[in-house]
Protein backbone atom coordinates (compact mmCIF):
# COMPACT_ATOMS: atom_id res chain seq x y z
CA UNK A 1 0.00 0.00 0.00
CA UNK A 2 2.79 2.42 0.94
CA UNK A 3 4.59 1.63 -2.31
CA UNK A 4 1.46 2.35 -4.34
CA UNK A 5 0.97 5.61 -2.47
CA UNK A 6 4.61 6.51 -3.11
CA UNK A 7 4.24 5.77 -6.84
CA UNK A 8 1.08 7.87 -7.05
CA UNK A 9 2.78 10.69 -5.19
CA UNK A 10 5.70 10.58 -7.60
CA UNK A 11 3.31 10.98 -10.54
CA UNK A 12 1.45 13.84 -8.82
CA UNK A 13 4.79 15.54 -8.11
CA UNK A 14 5.68 15.58 -11.79
CA UNK A 15 2.24 16.88 -12.82
CA UNK A 16 2.65 19.72 -10.30
CA UNK A 17 6.22 20.46 -11.44
CA UNK A 18 5.07 20.55 -15.07
CA UNK A 19 2.22 22.86 -14.10
CA UNK A 20 4.43 25.30 -12.22
CA UNK A 21 7.14 25.17 -14.89
CA UNK A 22 4.76 25.74 -17.79
CA UNK A 23 4.18 29.34 -16.71
CA UNK A 24 7.87 30.06 -17.36
CA UNK A 25 8.81 27.67 -20.14
CA UNK A 26 5.82 27.01 -22.41
CA UNK A 27 5.18 29.58 -25.12
CA UNK A 28 2.56 29.18 -27.82
CA UNK A 29 4.06 28.16 -31.15
CA UNK A 30 7.55 27.79 -29.68
CA UNK A 31 9.53 24.65 -29.05
CA UNK A 32 9.88 23.82 -25.36
CA UNK A 33 11.58 21.12 -23.36
CA UNK A 34 9.61 18.96 -20.95
CA UNK A 35 12.78 18.32 -18.90
CA UNK A 36 13.54 22.01 -18.47
CA UNK A 37 9.86 22.73 -17.75
CA UNK A 38 9.64 20.05 -15.03
CA UNK A 39 12.93 21.09 -13.43
CA UNK A 40 12.08 24.81 -13.54
CA UNK A 41 8.66 23.92 -12.15
CA UNK A 42 10.32 22.06 -9.31
CA UNK A 43 12.17 25.23 -8.30
CA UNK A 44 9.14 27.48 -8.84
CA UNK A 45 7.14 25.13 -6.62
CA UNK A 46 9.73 25.26 -3.83
CA UNK A 47 10.17 29.02 -4.09
CA UNK A 48 6.43 29.56 -3.69
CA UNK A 49 6.28 26.97 -0.92
CA UNK A 50 8.95 28.91 1.02
CA UNK A 51 6.84 32.07 0.73
CA UNK A 52 3.99 30.24 2.47
CA UNK A 53 6.12 28.25 4.90
CA UNK A 54 8.35 30.94 6.42
CA UNK A 55 5.56 33.14 7.86
CA UNK A 56 3.83 30.08 9.32
CA UNK A 57 7.10 28.82 10.81
CA UNK A 58 8.25 32.15 12.26
CA UNK A 59 4.90 32.70 13.97
CA UNK A 60 4.94 29.24 15.61
CA UNK A 61 1.88 27.93 13.86
CA UNK A 62 1.46 24.19 13.34
CA UNK A 63 2.65 22.23 10.35
CA UNK A 64 -0.87 20.92 9.79
CA UNK A 65 -2.06 24.50 9.25
CA UNK A 66 0.64 25.02 6.61
CA UNK A 67 -0.42 21.74 4.97
CA UNK A 68 -4.04 22.89 4.80
CA UNK A 69 -3.07 26.31 3.44
CA UNK A 70 -0.57 24.97 0.88
CA UNK A 71 -3.10 22.69 -0.80
CA UNK A 72 -5.02 25.65 -2.22
CA UNK A 73 -2.36 27.58 -4.20
CA UNK A 74 -0.94 24.28 -5.34
CA UNK A 75 -4.25 22.98 -6.65
CA UNK A 76 -5.19 26.35 -8.12
CA UNK A 77 -1.93 26.76 -10.04
CA UNK A 78 -2.11 23.19 -11.32
CA UNK A 79 -5.69 23.69 -12.51
CA UNK A 80 -4.81 27.01 -14.18
CA UNK A 81 -1.85 25.36 -15.88
CA UNK A 82 -4.04 22.54 -17.17
CA UNK A 83 -6.51 25.06 -18.59
CA UNK A 84 -3.84 27.35 -20.04
CA UNK A 85 -1.28 24.82 -21.22
CA UNK A 86 -3.28 21.60 -21.56
CA UNK A 87 -3.29 21.90 -25.33
CA UNK A 88 0.50 22.37 -25.47
CA UNK A 89 1.00 19.40 -23.14
CA UNK A 90 -1.24 17.30 -25.36
CA UNK A 91 0.67 18.45 -28.42
CA UNK A 92 3.97 17.59 -26.72
CA UNK A 93 2.78 14.09 -25.83
CA UNK A 94 1.57 13.60 -29.42
CA UNK A 95 4.95 14.78 -30.76
CA UNK A 96 6.80 12.59 -28.28
CA UNK A 97 4.81 9.58 -29.48
CA UNK A 98 5.84 10.25 -33.08
CA UNK A 99 9.47 10.85 -32.07
CA UNK A 100 9.28 7.64 -30.04
CA UNK A 101 8.30 5.63 -33.08
CA UNK A 102 11.33 7.05 -34.94
CA UNK A 103 13.79 6.49 -32.12
CA UNK A 104 12.29 3.55 -30.29
CA UNK A 105 15.62 2.06 -29.20
CA UNK A 106 16.86 5.40 -27.93
CA UNK A 107 13.85 6.05 -25.72
CA UNK A 108 13.54 2.45 -24.52
CA UNK A 109 17.22 2.38 -23.52
CA UNK A 110 16.92 5.75 -21.78
CA UNK A 111 13.83 4.52 -19.91
CA UNK A 112 15.57 1.28 -18.91
CA UNK A 113 18.77 3.03 -17.74
CA UNK A 114 16.77 5.61 -15.77
CA UNK A 115 14.55 2.93 -14.23
CA UNK A 116 17.64 0.99 -13.18
CA UNK A 117 19.21 4.09 -11.61
CA UNK A 118 15.97 4.82 -9.72
CA UNK A 119 15.73 1.21 -8.59
CA UNK A 120 19.32 1.16 -7.29
CA UNK A 121 18.92 4.49 -5.52
CA UNK A 122 15.65 3.39 -3.92
CA UNK A 123 16.53 -0.11 -2.80
CA UNK A 124 20.14 0.23 -1.66
CA UNK A 125 21.01 0.97 1.94
CA UNK A 126 23.27 3.93 2.53
CA UNK A 127 24.37 5.44 5.80
CA UNK A 128 25.00 9.18 5.88
CA UNK A 129 25.45 11.41 8.89
CA UNK A 130 23.50 14.23 7.27
CA UNK A 131 20.34 12.14 7.10
CA UNK A 132 20.42 12.31 10.90
CA UNK A 133 19.47 15.94 10.47
CA UNK A 134 17.43 16.09 7.27
CA UNK A 135 15.25 13.02 7.46
CA UNK A 136 14.91 13.23 11.24
CA UNK A 137 13.83 16.84 10.75
CA UNK A 138 10.95 15.74 8.52
CA UNK A 139 9.98 13.01 10.99
CA UNK A 140 10.23 15.41 13.95
CA UNK A 141 8.17 18.12 12.24
CA UNK A 142 5.44 15.64 11.37
CA UNK A 143 5.44 14.13 14.85
CA UNK A 144 5.40 17.44 16.76
CA UNK A 145 3.16 19.23 14.23
CA UNK A 146 5.54 22.19 14.36
CA UNK A 147 8.16 23.46 11.90
CA UNK A 148 11.85 23.35 12.86
CA UNK A 149 11.36 24.19 16.55
CA UNK A 150 12.69 20.84 17.81
CA UNK A 151 16.24 19.64 17.33
CA UNK A 152 16.16 16.73 14.87
CA UNK A 153 19.30 15.16 16.37
CA UNK A 154 17.94 14.75 19.89
CA UNK A 155 14.28 15.77 19.80
CA UNK A 156 14.89 18.52 22.36
CA UNK A 157 13.14 21.86 22.03
CA UNK A 158 15.39 24.57 20.53
CA UNK A 159 15.56 28.07 21.92
CA UNK A 160 16.00 29.62 18.48
CA UNK A 161 15.80 28.51 14.86
CA UNK A 162 18.96 27.06 13.35
CA UNK A 163 19.40 29.57 10.51
CA UNK A 164 21.80 27.38 8.61
CA UNK A 165 18.84 25.22 7.63
CA UNK A 166 15.75 27.24 8.33
CA UNK A 167 15.45 29.03 4.97
CA UNK A 168 15.91 25.75 3.12
CA UNK A 169 12.26 24.81 3.37
CA UNK A 170 12.58 21.82 1.04
CA UNK A 171 12.36 19.43 3.99
CA UNK A 172 9.41 21.32 5.46
CA UNK A 173 7.69 20.54 2.16
CA UNK A 174 8.45 16.86 2.68
CA UNK A 175 6.88 17.16 6.12
CA UNK A 176 3.79 18.80 4.61
CA UNK A 177 3.47 15.96 2.09
CA UNK A 178 3.81 13.41 4.92
CA UNK A 179 1.09 15.22 6.88
CA UNK A 180 -1.25 15.36 3.90
CA UNK A 181 -0.75 11.79 2.72
CA UNK A 182 0.21 9.91 5.87
CA UNK A 183 3.30 8.58 4.13
CA UNK A 184 6.25 8.00 6.55
CA UNK A 185 9.12 10.52 6.46
CA UNK A 186 11.64 7.86 5.46
CA UNK A 187 9.52 6.79 2.49
CA UNK A 188 8.83 10.36 1.34
CA UNK A 189 12.51 11.30 1.46
CA UNK A 190 14.32 8.10 0.58
CA UNK A 191 11.85 6.72 -1.96
CA UNK A 192 9.53 9.37 -3.41
CA UNK A 193 11.93 12.32 -3.58
CA UNK A 194 14.87 10.06 -4.40
CA UNK A 195 12.98 8.75 -7.43
CA UNK A 196 11.80 12.26 -8.39
CA UNK A 197 15.30 13.72 -8.30
CA UNK A 198 16.83 10.78 -10.15
CA UNK A 199 14.21 10.94 -12.92
CA UNK A 200 14.60 14.70 -13.23
CA UNK A 201 18.39 14.45 -13.46
CA UNK A 202 18.09 11.85 -16.22
CA UNK A 203 15.53 13.96 -18.10
CA UNK A 204 18.01 16.83 -18.04
CA UNK A 205 20.78 14.53 -19.32
CA UNK A 206 18.58 13.51 -22.26
CA UNK A 207 17.90 17.18 -22.96
CA UNK A 208 21.64 17.88 -23.06
CA UNK A 209 22.46 14.87 -25.24
CA UNK A 210 19.71 15.58 -27.75
CA UNK A 211 20.71 19.20 -28.01
CA UNK A 212 24.32 18.24 -28.78
CA UNK A 213 23.42 15.41 -31.15
CA UNK A 214 20.35 15.16 -33.36
CA UNK A 215 21.44 11.63 -34.28
CA UNK A 216 19.87 9.25 -31.74
CA UNK A 217 22.84 6.86 -31.78
CA UNK A 218 25.23 9.60 -30.71
CA UNK A 219 22.80 11.04 -28.18
CA UNK A 220 22.29 7.59 -26.68
CA UNK A 221 26.02 6.94 -26.41
CA UNK A 222 26.54 10.28 -24.70
CA UNK A 223 23.65 9.58 -22.29
CA UNK A 224 25.02 6.14 -21.42
CA UNK A 225 28.47 7.64 -20.78
CA UNK A 226 26.95 10.32 -18.53
CA UNK A 227 25.22 7.64 -16.51
CA UNK A 228 28.38 5.53 -16.48
CA UNK A 229 30.27 8.47 -14.95
CA UNK A 230 27.65 8.77 -12.22
CA UNK A 231 28.27 5.15 -11.28
CA UNK A 232 32.06 5.52 -11.30
CA UNK A 233 33.05 9.10 -10.32
CA UNK A 234 32.69 8.33 -6.65
CA UNK A 235 34.28 9.78 -3.56
CA UNK A 236 32.55 11.11 -0.46
CA UNK A 237 32.34 14.51 -2.12
CA UNK A 238 31.47 14.21 -5.82
CA UNK A 239 28.13 15.28 -7.22
CA UNK A 240 27.75 11.77 -8.66
CA UNK A 241 28.02 10.30 -5.18
CA UNK A 242 25.36 12.67 -3.92
CA UNK A 243 23.10 11.70 -6.81
CA UNK A 244 23.54 7.96 -6.43
CA UNK A 245 23.63 7.63 -2.64
CA UNK A 246 22.20 10.77 -1.07
CA UNK A 247 19.67 11.61 -3.75
CA UNK A 248 17.02 13.04 -1.43
CA UNK A 249 19.31 15.67 0.13
CA UNK A 250 19.11 19.33 -0.81
CA UNK A 251 22.83 19.26 -1.64
CA UNK A 252 22.23 16.53 -4.19
CA UNK A 253 19.56 18.67 -5.85
CA UNK A 254 21.91 21.64 -6.01
CA UNK A 255 24.73 19.52 -7.44
CA UNK A 256 22.71 17.49 -9.92
CA UNK A 257 19.62 19.46 -10.85
CA UNK A 258 20.37 23.16 -10.30
CA UNK A 259 23.96 23.08 -11.58
CA UNK A 260 22.97 21.04 -14.65
CA UNK A 261 19.83 23.08 -15.33
CA UNK A 262 21.80 26.33 -15.16
CA UNK A 263 24.29 24.85 -17.61
CA UNK A 264 21.38 23.97 -19.93
CA UNK A 265 20.12 27.56 -19.71
CA UNK A 266 23.64 28.69 -20.57
CA UNK A 267 23.63 26.32 -23.56
CA UNK A 268 20.31 27.82 -24.64
CA UNK A 269 21.87 31.27 -24.43
CA UNK A 270 24.80 30.15 -26.60
CA UNK A 271 22.45 28.58 -29.14
CA UNK A 272 19.81 31.33 -29.19
CA UNK A 273 21.29 34.55 -27.77
CA UNK A 274 18.02 36.42 -28.20
CA UNK A 275 15.74 33.77 -26.71
CA UNK A 276 13.06 35.36 -24.54
CA UNK A 277 12.41 34.42 -20.93
CA UNK A 278 15.81 32.87 -20.29
CA UNK A 279 16.71 35.14 -17.40
CA UNK A 280 13.28 34.69 -15.85
CA UNK A 281 13.93 30.94 -15.85
CA UNK A 282 17.40 31.50 -14.44
CA UNK A 283 15.97 33.70 -11.70
CA UNK A 284 13.38 31.07 -10.78
CA UNK A 285 16.02 28.34 -10.65
CA UNK A 286 18.29 30.48 -8.45
CA UNK A 287 15.43 31.52 -6.19
CA UNK A 288 14.08 27.99 -5.86
CA UNK A 289 17.53 26.53 -5.23
CA UNK A 290 18.03 28.95 -2.33
CA UNK A 291 14.99 27.33 -0.70
CA UNK A 292 16.26 23.81 -1.29
CA UNK A 293 19.67 23.93 0.42
CA UNK A 294 21.96 26.52 1.97
CA UNK A 295 24.73 25.02 -0.19
CA UNK A 296 23.14 27.00 -3.02
CA UNK A 297 24.26 30.24 -1.41
CA UNK A 298 27.86 29.50 -2.35
CA UNK A 299 27.58 27.26 -5.41
CA UNK A 300 24.88 29.00 -7.46
CA UNK A 301 26.32 32.56 -7.52
CA UNK A 302 29.69 31.02 -8.38
CA UNK A 303 28.24 28.98 -11.24
CA UNK A 304 26.23 31.89 -12.64
CA UNK A 305 29.37 34.02 -12.50
CA UNK A 306 31.62 31.38 -14.08
CA UNK A 307 29.23 30.62 -16.95
CA UNK A 308 27.49 33.86 -17.81
CA UNK A 309 29.93 36.65 -16.97
CA UNK A 310 32.67 35.53 -19.42
CA UNK A 311 29.96 35.18 -22.08
CA UNK A 312 28.65 38.70 -21.37
CA UNK A 313 32.18 40.13 -21.46
CA UNK A 314 33.26 38.31 -24.63
CA UNK A 315 30.04 39.19 -26.45
CA UNK A 316 30.05 42.69 -24.95
CA UNK A 317 26.49 42.18 -23.71
CA UNK A 318 26.80 44.46 -20.72
CA UNK A 319 23.04 44.65 -20.26
CA UNK A 320 23.18 41.06 -19.09
CA UNK A 321 25.17 41.88 -15.96
CA UNK A 322 22.40 43.58 -13.93
CA UNK A 323 20.08 40.68 -14.79
CA UNK A 324 22.68 38.22 -13.51
CA UNK A 325 23.06 40.20 -10.29
CA UNK A 326 19.31 40.07 -9.83
CA UNK A 327 19.31 36.29 -10.39
CA UNK A 328 21.83 35.63 -7.63
CA UNK A 329 20.32 38.16 -5.24
CA UNK A 330 18.36 35.50 -3.26
CA UNK A 331 21.57 33.55 -2.57
CA UNK A 332 23.55 36.66 -1.64
CA UNK A 333 20.78 37.76 0.74
CA UNK A 334 20.66 34.31 2.36
CA UNK A 335 24.43 34.27 2.68
CA UNK A 336 24.44 37.66 4.41
CA UNK A 337 21.68 36.60 6.80
CA UNK A 338 23.61 33.45 7.65
CA UNK A 339 26.92 35.27 8.16
CA UNK A 340 25.22 37.77 10.50
CA UNK A 341 23.66 34.88 12.42
CA UNK A 342 26.94 32.98 12.70
CA UNK A 343 28.74 36.12 13.85
CA UNK A 344 26.11 36.39 16.58
CA UNK A 345 24.30 39.51 15.44
CA UNK A 346 20.78 38.14 15.79
CA UNK A 347 18.66 35.11 16.51
CA UNK A 348 15.09 34.22 15.66
CA UNK A 349 13.36 32.66 18.63
CA UNK A 350 11.12 29.64 18.53
CA UNK A 351 8.78 31.13 21.13
CA UNK A 352 7.53 34.74 21.40
CA UNK A 353 9.53 36.88 23.82
Amino acid at each position, binding site marked *: MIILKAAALLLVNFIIYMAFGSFFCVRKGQNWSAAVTAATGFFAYHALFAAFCLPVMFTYRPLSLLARIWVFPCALITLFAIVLFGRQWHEKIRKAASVFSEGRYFFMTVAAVTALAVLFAVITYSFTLDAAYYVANVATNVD*TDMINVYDPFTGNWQDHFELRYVFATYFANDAVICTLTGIPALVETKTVMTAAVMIMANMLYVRICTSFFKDHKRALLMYVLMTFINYMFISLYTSSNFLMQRTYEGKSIVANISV*ILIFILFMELCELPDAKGLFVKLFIVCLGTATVSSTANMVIPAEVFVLFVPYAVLKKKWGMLPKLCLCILPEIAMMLIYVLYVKGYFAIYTFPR
Partner: protein
Amino acid sequence: MQGVNVFENGIGYLFKCLNLYTSGTGFFVMYLFCLAYVFIKGSTKVREMFIPNAVVLMITVYNPFVPIVLDRIFDVSSEYYRLFWIAPVIILVPYVLTTVIMDEKCTSRKVLYAILTAAMFILGGNFVYSGGHAAQNIYKIDDELIEISDLIHEDSGTEYTRAFFEYGYNMEIRQYDPKMLLAIDREQYLYAVNYSYTDEMLSDDGMPEYKILAVLVRNQNVDEGDFTDALIKTATPYVVLTKGHPQTSYVRSAGLREIGQTGTHTVFKLDGAVGDYGLVDYTGAEHRFSFRRLK
Protein backbone atom coordinates in the same frame (compact mmCIF):
# COMPACT_ATOMS: atom_id res chain seq x y z
CA MET B 1 36.20 18.58 4.00
CA GLN B 2 36.75 16.49 7.07
CA GLY B 3 40.22 16.91 8.56
CA VAL B 4 41.43 19.50 6.03
CA ASN B 5 41.23 23.17 6.80
CA VAL B 6 42.42 26.31 5.08
CA PHE B 7 44.14 27.79 8.15
CA GLU B 8 46.48 24.81 8.62
CA ASN B 9 47.16 24.08 4.96
CA GLY B 10 47.34 27.50 3.34
CA ILE B 11 47.79 27.24 -0.43
CA GLY B 12 48.16 23.46 -0.03
CA TYR B 13 44.49 23.31 1.01
CA LEU B 14 43.20 23.33 -2.55
CA PHE B 15 45.40 20.42 -3.64
CA LYS B 16 44.50 18.34 -0.58
CA CYS B 17 40.87 19.13 -1.27
CA LEU B 18 41.18 18.09 -4.92
CA ASN B 19 42.94 14.89 -3.88
CA LEU B 20 40.15 13.96 -1.51
CA TYR B 21 37.51 15.03 -4.01
CA THR B 22 38.82 12.93 -6.87
CA SER B 23 39.88 10.14 -4.48
CA GLY B 24 41.99 8.29 -7.03
CA THR B 25 39.49 8.58 -9.87
CA GLY B 26 40.63 9.89 -13.23
CA PHE B 27 37.58 11.88 -14.29
CA PHE B 28 38.94 15.30 -13.47
CA VAL B 29 42.05 14.59 -15.53
CA MET B 30 39.79 13.36 -18.34
CA TYR B 31 37.93 16.68 -18.08
CA LEU B 32 41.20 18.57 -18.58
CA PHE B 33 42.12 16.46 -21.63
CA CYS B 34 38.64 16.97 -23.05
CA LEU B 35 39.00 20.73 -22.60
CA ALA B 36 42.21 20.56 -24.62
CA TYR B 37 40.43 18.49 -27.29
CA VAL B 38 37.56 20.99 -27.54
CA PHE B 39 40.01 23.89 -27.64
CA ILE B 40 41.84 22.31 -30.57
CA LYS B 41 39.10 20.50 -32.48
CA GLY B 42 35.78 21.80 -31.17
CA SER B 43 33.35 23.91 -33.15
CA THR B 44 33.08 27.60 -32.29
CA LYS B 45 29.79 27.02 -30.48
CA VAL B 46 31.15 24.14 -28.39
CA ARG B 47 34.30 26.09 -27.57
CA GLU B 48 32.13 28.99 -26.48
CA MET B 49 30.24 26.65 -24.15
CA PHE B 50 33.22 25.08 -22.43
CA ILE B 51 36.43 27.11 -22.74
CA PRO B 52 35.73 30.60 -21.27
CA ASN B 53 34.07 29.16 -18.16
CA ALA B 54 36.91 26.64 -17.74
CA VAL B 55 39.42 29.52 -17.81
CA VAL B 56 37.41 31.44 -15.21
CA LEU B 57 37.14 28.27 -13.10
CA MET B 58 40.91 27.86 -13.17
CA ILE B 59 41.43 31.49 -12.16
CA THR B 60 38.84 31.38 -9.38
CA VAL B 61 37.71 28.04 -7.93
CA TYR B 62 40.95 26.20 -8.72
CA ASN B 63 43.17 29.09 -7.66
CA PRO B 64 44.92 28.03 -4.41
CA PHE B 65 44.76 31.60 -3.05
CA VAL B 66 40.97 31.91 -3.37
CA PRO B 67 40.05 29.61 -0.44
CA ILE B 68 42.48 31.59 1.74
CA VAL B 69 40.76 34.87 0.87
CA LEU B 70 37.27 33.37 1.25
CA ASP B 71 38.18 31.85 4.58
CA ARG B 72 38.76 35.32 5.99
CA ILE B 73 35.11 36.19 5.36
CA PHE B 74 33.57 32.88 6.47
CA ASP B 75 34.78 29.39 7.24
CA VAL B 76 34.91 27.56 3.90
CA SER B 77 37.11 24.65 4.98
CA SER B 78 34.37 22.07 5.14
CA GLU B 79 32.42 23.23 2.11
CA TYR B 80 34.87 24.51 -0.50
CA TYR B 81 34.76 21.20 -2.39
CA ARG B 82 31.18 21.94 -3.40
CA LEU B 83 32.48 24.53 -5.84
CA PHE B 84 34.11 21.65 -7.76
CA TRP B 85 30.58 20.58 -8.77
CA ILE B 86 30.47 23.52 -11.17
CA ALA B 87 33.01 22.03 -13.60
CA PRO B 88 30.83 20.29 -16.21
CA VAL B 89 32.78 17.01 -16.06
CA ILE B 90 29.65 14.92 -16.57
CA ILE B 91 28.77 16.86 -19.73
CA LEU B 92 32.10 17.51 -21.40
CA VAL B 93 33.76 14.10 -20.98
CA PRO B 94 30.84 12.12 -22.49
CA TYR B 95 30.42 14.71 -25.24
CA VAL B 96 34.05 14.49 -26.34
CA LEU B 97 34.25 10.71 -26.07
CA THR B 98 31.02 10.32 -28.05
CA THR B 99 32.43 12.60 -30.74
CA VAL B 100 35.74 10.74 -30.86
CA ILE B 101 34.08 7.31 -31.06
CA MET B 102 31.32 8.20 -33.50
CA ASP B 103 33.45 10.34 -35.82
CA GLU B 104 35.76 7.40 -36.41
CA LYS B 105 34.92 5.87 -39.77
CA CYS B 106 36.81 2.61 -39.37
CA THR B 107 34.60 0.14 -37.46
CA SER B 108 37.41 -1.75 -35.76
CA ARG B 109 38.91 1.50 -34.48
CA LYS B 110 35.47 2.60 -33.33
CA VAL B 111 35.17 -0.61 -31.30
CA LEU B 112 38.68 -0.14 -29.95
CA TYR B 113 37.88 3.44 -28.79
CA ALA B 114 34.69 2.22 -27.14
CA ILE B 115 36.59 -0.52 -25.29
CA LEU B 116 39.27 1.97 -24.25
CA THR B 117 36.59 4.36 -22.96
CA ALA B 118 34.94 1.61 -20.92
CA ALA B 119 38.34 0.52 -19.57
CA MET B 120 39.24 4.10 -18.70
CA PHE B 121 35.97 4.56 -16.80
CA ILE B 122 36.25 1.26 -14.98
CA LEU B 123 39.95 1.50 -14.10
CA GLY B 124 39.80 5.22 -13.42
CA GLY B 125 36.70 5.09 -11.26
CA ASN B 126 35.27 3.77 -8.01
CA PHE B 127 32.03 1.86 -8.49
CA VAL B 128 29.33 3.43 -6.34
CA TYR B 129 27.74 0.20 -5.15
CA SER B 130 30.92 -1.82 -4.64
CA GLY B 131 30.34 -2.04 -0.89
CA GLY B 132 26.59 -1.55 -0.99
CA HIS B 133 23.78 -3.84 -0.04
CA ALA B 134 20.02 -3.84 -0.41
CA ALA B 135 17.95 -2.19 2.30
CA GLN B 136 16.11 -4.60 4.59
CA ASN B 137 12.79 -2.76 4.38
CA ILE B 138 11.03 0.22 2.83
CA TYR B 139 12.33 2.49 5.61
CA LYS B 140 15.93 1.66 4.64
CA ILE B 141 17.01 1.02 8.22
CA ASP B 142 17.84 -2.25 10.00
CA ASP B 143 14.89 -4.44 10.93
CA GLU B 144 16.59 -4.77 14.28
CA LEU B 145 16.39 -1.03 14.95
CA ILE B 146 12.62 -1.19 14.43
CA GLU B 147 12.52 -4.10 16.85
CA ILE B 148 14.51 -2.14 19.46
CA SER B 149 12.24 0.89 19.07
CA ASP B 150 9.15 -1.26 19.67
CA LEU B 151 10.78 -2.95 22.64
CA ILE B 152 11.64 0.34 24.37
CA HIS B 153 8.26 1.98 23.76
CA GLU B 154 6.46 -1.12 25.00
CA ASP B 155 8.53 -1.01 28.18
CA SER B 156 8.41 2.77 28.80
CA GLY B 157 4.64 3.19 28.70
CA THR B 158 5.11 6.88 27.83
CA GLU B 159 4.67 8.58 24.46
CA TYR B 160 8.23 9.91 24.45
CA THR B 161 11.31 8.39 26.02
CA ARG B 162 15.05 8.86 25.79
CA ALA B 163 17.87 6.44 25.06
CA PHE B 164 21.56 6.11 24.35
CA PHE B 165 22.44 4.28 21.13
CA GLU B 166 25.79 3.49 19.60
CA TYR B 167 27.03 5.51 16.61
CA GLY B 168 25.08 4.12 13.62
CA TYR B 169 21.79 3.61 15.40
CA ASN B 170 22.16 6.97 17.17
CA MET B 171 22.20 8.61 13.74
CA GLU B 172 19.32 6.56 12.34
CA ILE B 173 16.75 5.98 15.04
CA ARG B 174 15.12 9.42 14.92
CA GLN B 175 14.64 9.19 11.17
CA TYR B 176 12.29 6.32 11.84
CA ASP B 177 11.06 7.06 15.36
CA PRO B 178 10.80 10.75 16.33
CA LYS B 179 9.28 9.76 19.68
CA MET B 180 12.65 8.35 20.70
CA LEU B 181 14.71 11.21 22.11
CA LEU B 182 18.46 10.91 22.28
CA ALA B 183 20.87 11.59 25.11
CA ILE B 184 23.67 12.49 22.70
CA ASP B 185 23.52 14.67 19.60
CA ARG B 186 25.52 14.15 16.43
CA GLU B 187 28.36 16.60 17.12
CA GLN B 188 28.88 15.30 20.66
CA TYR B 189 29.08 11.77 19.32
CA LEU B 190 31.53 12.71 16.57
CA TYR B 191 33.76 14.38 19.17
CA ALA B 192 33.73 11.22 21.29
CA VAL B 193 34.66 9.07 18.31
CA ASN B 194 37.78 11.16 17.74
CA TYR B 195 38.91 12.42 21.14
CA SER B 196 39.15 11.28 24.76
CA TYR B 197 37.72 13.25 27.66
CA THR B 198 40.07 15.06 30.04
CA ASP B 199 39.57 14.95 33.82
CA GLU B 200 38.50 18.57 33.65
CA MET B 201 35.78 17.73 31.13
CA LEU B 202 34.63 14.77 33.19
CA SER B 203 34.27 16.93 36.27
CA ASP B 204 32.04 19.41 34.40
CA ASP B 205 28.64 18.88 36.02
CA GLY B 206 26.98 20.98 33.36
CA MET B 207 27.80 18.37 30.71
CA PRO B 208 26.74 14.94 32.02
CA GLU B 209 26.81 13.71 28.41
CA TYR B 210 30.63 13.65 28.62
CA LYS B 211 30.52 10.93 31.27
CA ILE B 212 28.13 8.79 29.24
CA LEU B 213 30.32 9.12 26.15
CA ALA B 214 33.54 8.57 28.11
CA VAL B 215 32.21 5.24 29.39
CA LEU B 216 30.29 3.94 26.40
CA VAL B 217 32.35 5.29 23.48
CA ARG B 218 35.87 5.91 24.82
CA ASN B 219 35.85 3.08 27.41
CA GLN B 220 37.38 5.50 29.94
CA ASN B 221 37.24 4.98 33.69
CA VAL B 222 34.32 6.79 35.25
CA ASP B 223 32.86 6.12 38.66
CA GLU B 224 29.70 3.98 38.32
CA GLY B 225 27.74 6.41 40.48
CA ASP B 226 28.76 9.35 38.29
CA PHE B 227 27.71 7.40 35.22
CA THR B 228 24.22 6.62 36.55
CA ASP B 229 23.89 10.22 37.78
CA ALA B 230 24.67 11.36 34.23
CA LEU B 231 21.90 9.10 32.89
CA ILE B 232 19.48 10.52 35.46
CA LYS B 233 20.50 14.12 34.74
CA THR B 234 20.02 13.63 31.01
CA ALA B 235 16.71 11.80 31.66
CA THR B 236 17.98 8.72 29.83
CA PRO B 237 16.51 5.48 31.14
CA TYR B 238 17.56 3.27 28.20
CA VAL B 239 21.00 2.23 26.96
CA VAL B 240 21.28 0.09 23.82
CA LEU B 241 24.58 -1.73 23.30
CA THR B 242 25.80 -4.30 20.83
CA LYS B 243 26.27 -7.74 22.33
CA GLY B 244 29.88 -8.09 23.38
CA HIS B 245 30.32 -4.34 23.98
CA PRO B 246 33.36 -3.96 26.31
CA GLN B 247 31.31 -2.01 28.86
CA THR B 248 28.46 -4.51 29.18
CA SER B 249 29.59 -5.77 32.59
CA TYR B 250 30.23 -2.18 33.76
CA VAL B 251 26.69 -1.19 32.76
CA ARG B 252 25.23 -4.16 34.62
CA SER B 253 27.32 -3.50 37.69
CA ALA B 254 26.25 0.20 37.63
CA GLY B 255 22.71 -1.03 38.20
CA LEU B 256 21.15 -1.13 34.74
CA ARG B 257 18.99 -4.15 34.09
CA GLU B 258 18.48 -5.90 30.80
CA ILE B 259 14.95 -5.52 29.47
CA GLY B 260 15.39 -7.39 26.23
CA GLN B 261 17.61 -8.53 23.41
CA THR B 262 17.46 -8.51 19.65
CA GLY B 263 19.73 -10.36 17.23
CA THR B 264 22.88 -8.36 17.96
CA HIS B 265 21.85 -5.83 20.62
CA THR B 266 20.94 -5.72 24.30
CA VAL B 267 18.62 -3.08 25.74
CA PHE B 268 19.34 -1.95 29.32
CA LYS B 269 17.25 0.20 31.61
CA LEU B 270 18.14 2.36 34.60
CA ASP B 271 15.04 2.34 36.78
CA GLY B 272 15.86 5.61 38.54
CA ALA B 273 16.00 7.64 35.32
CA VAL B 274 12.76 9.17 34.07
CA GLY B 275 12.62 9.65 30.33
CA ASP B 276 9.13 11.09 29.93
CA TYR B 277 9.07 14.24 27.87
CA GLY B 278 6.34 16.61 26.79
CA LEU B 279 6.14 18.97 23.84
CA VAL B 280 6.20 22.72 24.41
CA ASP B 281 2.67 24.09 24.60
CA TYR B 282 2.10 26.69 21.89
CA THR B 283 -1.67 26.96 22.32
CA GLY B 284 -1.49 30.20 24.29
CA ALA B 285 1.51 31.62 22.44
CA GLU B 286 1.17 34.90 20.56
CA HIS B 287 1.72 34.26 16.89
CA ARG B 288 4.23 37.01 16.26
CA PHE B 289 7.74 37.05 14.90
CA SER B 290 10.30 37.17 17.71
CA PHE B 291 13.74 38.32 16.77
CA ARG B 292 16.53 39.78 18.85
CA ARG B 293 19.85 41.46 18.20
CA LEU B 294 22.49 39.71 20.19
CA LYS B 295 25.46 42.02 19.71
